[in-house]
Every structure is written in structure tokens, then in C-alpha cells.
């Protein structure tokens, strides 16, 4: 049952990658900016709750709500100050600078602040669902992993319903596909950019909180998460949340299987080699070209 357990572990981490990939893809679709700070919001969620609960002694629900509120307000303020000046002003910037630079800088900024506030040790938010891992036959289910999966399904499903069955969701898609056409029917694309940025920041923080008991976070953990989410989103051509989700799951499972069967030490190396080979072999099928040509 080694395979089964590896598969479960892979799907758990994969669903996290998938969520971050979806966050990156959805926001890129709306704003044409890649959110390289999405993992840092997860880190702030995990370490923020840990700090408020363990160090400051606040009750856990208060700690969680406070952390999420701070993340939301910060994301909103960032959009209002930096992105508004960069994108909405009379001297609108375009191209690679906007696509990468502002969120890259944001990532470093958050890391720096987190280092001051939370220190450099490995911490984790307290487990929300305590107890030994559940077993079914010889399969092990970690409770945090089940929470992660459940959250991924709920949030992903809610988002799918929103896109599929509401006019606002369709307007969101439309503003990603054609911003001129969106403005013609009165869609405020800036409002959607703000909404999705704040929403993805909060979602990332939620996942940081529920996932951190499994892996533990330091102030530098964000970048790794962003990177994996970013790669999974790239496999979906950046603009296709559905494909990004599958790619995230695939990368998670691949990582677990390689770690278990090939080598725990060189698993990542082999994985990235495989991912690179896949892109070379099948660029169109993976949506890579649409990512490049926009």
C-alpha cells in the first residue's frame, strides 16, 4: 500500500499546488499580472496565526480572523496604492515590468516584514483538527490533509459555480479576455482586479493556516510555494484555471511518487527535469504557447 499512501500524500500537496496555481491563473487572466507573492500570503497566514495564538495568547478563532483581516486589508491597500498608480493612472505602464516586477517586489517586502515580526524559526499554525491520522486498511489520511482537500474542493467548486452560473462571473471572464469589450458593457475591470487580488490573498492565507501543521513554515517558505504554483499555472498556459488545477495535482502526485520510489533526495531534480521534458515534447498541448503569445 506504499503506492496508495504516496498517492494520497501527492493529491494533498497537489491540491495545494493546484489552489495556488488557480489563484495565479485567475488573477493573471483578469489583470495580466503574475502574482509572485501568492505564497507569501500563505506564509503570513500560517506564521501570523502562530504568532497571535502562541506568542500573544489570543484565542485561536480570534487569531485566525485577525490574520485574515490583516491580509485582506494589506492586499487591498497594495492594490489601491501600487497597482493603481502602475495601471490606472495617466502614465500606464505595460509589459514585463508590470507583469513581474511589482508582485516580485511585494514578495520581498512581505518576507522582510515577516522576518522582523516572526523571526527565522520554523513554526506552524496550530492544527485545526487534532488527533492521530485516520487509517483505512493500510491507508493513512492525515487530518490536516483531509482539511486541505476539503477546502480545495469547496473553494474551487464555489469559484467554478461563480464563473459558470453568475453574470458577475462571466463578466470576470470577459474582462480577462477582452478589456475593451468588457468596458463597453460597463464592466469595471479594475474592480475585478482588486476583488480577485484580495480574494486570492485571503484564500492563500487560509491554505497556509490549514496546511502549515503538515510542513511547517519559515519566513522564506512563501517563495517556494509561489514557484510551484507559478509552474503549475504555466502548464495551464497561465490563463486557464482548469488546466492549472490539473497541472497542480499532477505535479503534487509526481513529486510524491518520485520521492517515494526514485529518491527522496533527488526527487525534485528528477521532477523538474521531467516537467521541462514535457514542455519541450508537447508545448501546444500544455498551453505553453498561449502563455507566451498572450
Amino acid at each position: 500500500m506504499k503506492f496508495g499512501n504516496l498517492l494520497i500524500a501527492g493529491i494533498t500537496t497537489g491540491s495545494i499546488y493546484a489552489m495556488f496555481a488557480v489563484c495565479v491563473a485567475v488573477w493573471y487572466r483578469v489583470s495580466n499580472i503574475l502574482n509572485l507573492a501568492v505564497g507569501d500570503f500563505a506564509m503570513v497566514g500560517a506564521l501570523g496565526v502562530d504568532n497571535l495564538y502562541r506568542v500573544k495568547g489570543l484565542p485561536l478563532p480570534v487569531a485566525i480572523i485577525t490574520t485574515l483581516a490583516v491580509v485582506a486589508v494589506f492586499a487591498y491597500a497594495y492594490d489601491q496604492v501600487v497597482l493603481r498608480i502602475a495601471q490606472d493612472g495617466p502614465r500606464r505602464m505595460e509589459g514585463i515590468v508590470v507583469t513581474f516586477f511589482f508582485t516580485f517586489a511585494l514578495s520581498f517586502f512581505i518576507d522582510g516584514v515577516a522576518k522582523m515580526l516572526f523571526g527565522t524559526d520554523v513554526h506552524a499554525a496550530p492544527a485545526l483538527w487534532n488527533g492521530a491520522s485516520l487509517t483505512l486498511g493500510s491507508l493513512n489520511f492525515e487530518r490536516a490533509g483531509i482539511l486541505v482537500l476539503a477546502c480545495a474542493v469547496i473553494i474551487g467548486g464555489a469559484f467554478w459555480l461563480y464563473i459558470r452560473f453568475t453574470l458577475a462571473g462571466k463578466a470576470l471572464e470577459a474582462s480577462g479576455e477582452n478589456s475593451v469589450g468588457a468596458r463597453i458593457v460597463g464592466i469595471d475591470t479594475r474592480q475585478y482586479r482588486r476583488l480577485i487580488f484580495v480574494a486570492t490573498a485571503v484564500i492563500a492565507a487560509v491554505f497556509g493556516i490549514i496546511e502549515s501543521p503538515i510542513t511547517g513554515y519559515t519566513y522564506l517558505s512563501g517563495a517556494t510555494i509561489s514557484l510551484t504554483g507559478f509552474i503549475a499555472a504555466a502548464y495551464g498556459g497561465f490563463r486557464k484555471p482548469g488546466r492549472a488545477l490539473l497541472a497542480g495535482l499532477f505535479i503534487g502526485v509526481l513529486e510524491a511518487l518520485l520521492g517515494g520510489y526514485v529518491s527522496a533526495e533527488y526527487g525534485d531534480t528528477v521532477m523538474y527535469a521531467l516537467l521541462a521534458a514535457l514542455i519541450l515534447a508537447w508545448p501546444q498541448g500544455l498551453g505553453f504557447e498561449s502563455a507566451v503569445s498572450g
Partner: protein
Amino acid sequence: MSAAASTTEKAALTVTGLSVAYGNVVAVHDATFAVAEGDACAITGPNGNGKSSILMGVTGMVRRRGTVEIFGAAAKNGDVRWAARHGLTLVPERRQLYPDLSASDNIILGCYTWTRSIGKARRSDAYGRAVELFPELKPHLKQAAGTLSGGQQQMVAIARGLAANPRILAVDEPCLGLAEAVAKRVYDVLAQIHAAGTTLIVVEEAPRRALSLCNRRVEVRNGMAVSVRGDTALPEYTPGPDGPYPPRSTA
């Protein structure tokens, strides 16, 4: 409709001293004209002379100087939504559809100007009429808009405009790149829309085609000046082989 009678009619759109600039490039300079309710007004002139920019400025897609009144209410600068809610909807040049969304989703997003509820939008008269006007789109409504033919895309764009329930429909170069037969179909539909009581503004490079439909004309020249020949001084248009104007006037 006689010229004298039309001056007493209610003005649907009044544009005074409209200027539009892109950076340092002035596209429209000091344009003044009016369109009465129930009119079909053509905006004609050679390419690159600012016809589309007039529509962009009037609808608020770009910032402008000067005043625009829609049914007597002063329009907010740069606010497309306000214009759409007060009855002026743009069917833009190059259609500007959402290529990955289905044709019906494209059309229903026209309703976004007046509702947030997809149920209300689906049940609305505006949406129903917009879809019914194009029976040839019926089998393609579930298809991604980007995979439709040019003519079908133009029809989707017009239907999206109608879903916004406009009192004035401004159509920018509706026949750009379309085959003659398709262009004729598009104009037939525009005539139908006009006959149903919607005020029309049509930007056209080819005045002959536009004037088969329109009873007014605003002529744009040199990117700077706009001469309003359509307003009251113009005799009533009678359809002829070439119309009262030569097909292409030289400068």
C-alpha cells in the same frame, strides 16, 4: 421626415465642442452635432479622420473635452456605464467580443449594463429580442465566439449591444471585412432595429452604403474638423443608384 419637423423633435444626443486626444495626437477637434430621437445618423469620412474617436469620446470609452448630452442629461466623462444606463450603447469597431466565451454568453453580457442577475438577464425582453433578431445564430449560440465567422461575430456584437436595451445604438464600421451579401444582411438588421424605434448612429467609411439607411449625415474631415451637413440644411434623402453624394468624395 422633413428637416423643419425634425428640429422640433427631442434631441437624443447633443454633442458640443467634443475633442478627443491620444497623448499629443488630436483625433477629434471641436466637433458639434446633434442627433434627434428616431433618426438614423451616418458619420462618414475617410479612414483615420476621427470617426471612431467621436464615438469613443461620446460613449466615454476615452476621455474627452466638451459636453455630451444623452436625452438631455449631461454625460459623465469617461463613464461608459453611465452612457449605457442612459440609453447609449456602442457596438465597437472590430467587434471586441470575448473569444473563449460562447456566443450566448457574449450576448448576455450586454445585460451587465443594467443587471447583475443572470436570471433576470435571460428572461429579459432585451435579451430575447436580441437573440431572435438573428435566427442564423441559433445553431451557434453554444459555440465559442472566436470560432464564428466574421459575419456571425458582427451579429453577436450587435446582439450584445441590443441586450443592453439601448435607445441609441452606435455602430462602428459594422461591415469592415465582410462579404457584400453579409454586409447587406447586417444593414437589413440595422434597418429593422431602426424601424423598431431605436435611434441609430452608424460610422461608415463608405457613405453610399450608410446612406441607404440613414436620413442624416455628419461628415468628418482631416481628423480635426467636423462639418455637420446632416442636420437641417440637408434635403431629404431619396435612395438612388449613387445617392445624392458621390460614393467617394475626394478630400
